[in-house]
């Protein structure tokens, strides 16, 4: 189905339309070439909408006590109720918000920070680069969960702590990926040409290096979101993530473990929620990688 080409005159007068088309066209191409990735995008968009407006439209508050304790899924409670009679559907939707919040914020922090460090360190090189990279290597010697746990332990557990802790574990790997790409991009002839024309370092970084990092960073964001959500779930499973009354999928599983023999949905529902989100982010990451670099297709 071809979109009617708007005539040139209209396009000149409507910059908004141009911007819209510049989003729609690549999106349609992506959907056609990467159907699995497109399905993942649809699932994730649904989830985001659910996380944003869901808690407002669900029949019960996430922390509200209904009178039905450990009730199996029914029309009244589509996903059952938990050991203190809270509605599981309302809670899992509320948990989606926390999961995405922590995921997005920590990924923004980790990849943003890692990208700044990686680009500057890789572009300028020299002694500072060596020093910074050894510090990053040292950060990489901590298993992600161990570092996040340690940080969560010395700060007060909560939303901000979880975001900071997970962001810090993402930073060194993001730095490594971005630095690697920067090193190869800066060897290109157009960078040399820009320098010969007298462009400043800042201009070269912003106009010639950063745009070429787009593909790498997009893939990394997608895959890291999945990893961040798993760490968040693990932290809150251990009781060191987001604290009640905020709802987290990991904490839901932990608090309901004892009751799972009589009410398996208490573990299954948040478990499936985590798996679905992480799977979608991973599939999207793979699809984006294939889309940006067709030579890797099917690898």
């Amino acid at each position, binding site marked *: 189905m071809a979109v009617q080409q708007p005539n040139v005159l209209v396009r000149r007068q409507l910059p908004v339309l141009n911007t819209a088309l510049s989003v729609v066209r690549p999106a349609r191409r992506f959907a056609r070439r990467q159907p699995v990735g497109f399905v993942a995008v649809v699932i994730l968009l649904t989830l985001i909408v659910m996380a944003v407006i869901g808690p407002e439209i669900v029949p019960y508050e996430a922390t509200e006590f209904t009178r039905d304790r450990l009730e199996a899924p029914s029309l009244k409670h589509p996903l059952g109720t938990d050991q203190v009679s809270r509605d599981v559907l309302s809670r899992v939707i509320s948990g989606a918000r926390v999961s995405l919040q922590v995921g997005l914020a920590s990924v923004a922090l980790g990849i943003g920070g890692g990208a700044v460090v990686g680009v500057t360190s890789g572009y300028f090189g020299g002694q500072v680069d060596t020093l910074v990279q*050894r*510090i990053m*290597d*040292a*950060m*990489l*010697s*901590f*298993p*992600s*969960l*161990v570092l996040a*746990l*340690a*940080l*969560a*332990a*010395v*700060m007060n557990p909560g939303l901000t702590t979880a975001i900071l802790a997970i962001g810090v574990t993402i930073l060194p790997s993001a730095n490594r990926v971005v630095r690697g790409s920067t090193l190869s991009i800066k060897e290109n002839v157009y960078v040399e040409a820009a320098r010969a024309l007298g462009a400043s370092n800042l201009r070269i970084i912003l106009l010639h290096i950063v745009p070429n990092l787009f593909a790498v960073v997009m893939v990394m964001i997608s895959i890291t979101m*999945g990893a961040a959500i*798993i760490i968040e*779930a*693990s932290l809150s*499973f*251990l*009781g*060191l993530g987001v604290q009640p009354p905020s709802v987290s999928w*990991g904490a839901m*599983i932990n608090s309901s*473990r004892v009751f*799972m*023999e009589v009410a*398996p949905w208490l*573990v*299954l529902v948040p*478990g499936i929620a*985590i*798996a*679905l989100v*992480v*799977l979608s982010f*991973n*599939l999207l990451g*793979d699809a984006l990688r294939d889309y940006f670099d067709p030579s890797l297709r*099917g*690898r």
Partner: protein
Amino acid sequence: MHEYILRRLLYSIPVVFFTLVIIFLIINAIPGDVVDVQTAGTTLSEEAIAEYKREVGLDKPLPLRFFSWLGDLARGDLGTSIFTGVKVQTELERRVPVTLQLGIFGLTLAMIIAIPLGIISAIRANTPIDYVARFLAIGGLAVPNFVVAVLAILLLSKYLNYFPGVGYVLPWVDPVENFRLMWLPVLLVGTAQSASVARMVRSTLLEVLHSDYIRTAWSKGLRERAVVMRHAIRNALIPVITIIGLQARAIIGGIVLIEIVFGKPGMGSWMVESIFRRDLIPLQAIILLFALTVVVVNLIVDISYSWLDPRIRLK
């Protein structure tokens, strides 16, 4: 070769140093200090607390305390838990075997599952068997291992009336009991790690299968068996060694959760217990040991990699 090993060892020195600095900063970032945590809620006077702090050296400036900690480490003194009064060293002897068994057996199992799976997936790329293997791998990556562990316990206890035991017995004390207590945790650590290993094996082998010398092998009329087993796998498995290095971090994180779910008295559950008690001295030692394990594993991996593939050390 000797030169490469030397260079690689020298490179590790700053990494270990910064690792120590980071651990020290994290532990000391806590509001107040060990003594404040310990004496909170007691009726000790301000002077008594200050006196105690002087005794353990907490009144000294940070850099001085950092170097005195390094001194303690150099003498092999990891300190004493202020909560239990047990020396960290003593507790370690009890805890390390549990985690080591989970790690080594888990990693071995992951390789046993993932390498054949990755190979089949690569040589039969884009066939139904490849799709199934890839789906299993990407699905396995998406489910956190604590969820799998909790569900495994649920299934076994509810439908088979089987309860995986809590606790630990050393394998040389009672091998049968050790197996009974550890088979499920090891299985879960292994399967959890096999997903990402299988993906990496598949992509490295595919890369090798597209190289020139494989085309040559085919064109001189070798059978598939000879091409794959003698030419491709040998070269594809060298990079797989580096996977062990990459996997070391993930496997430790996985073990922490598995130990908690199965009630195993290992390093991971000790770490979580120490966090909840705010018992910082063992916590410091545990984080240090985890980080050093990763550094040492990566060192060994890099050196053996360069030994197998001379191109690396000549770079």
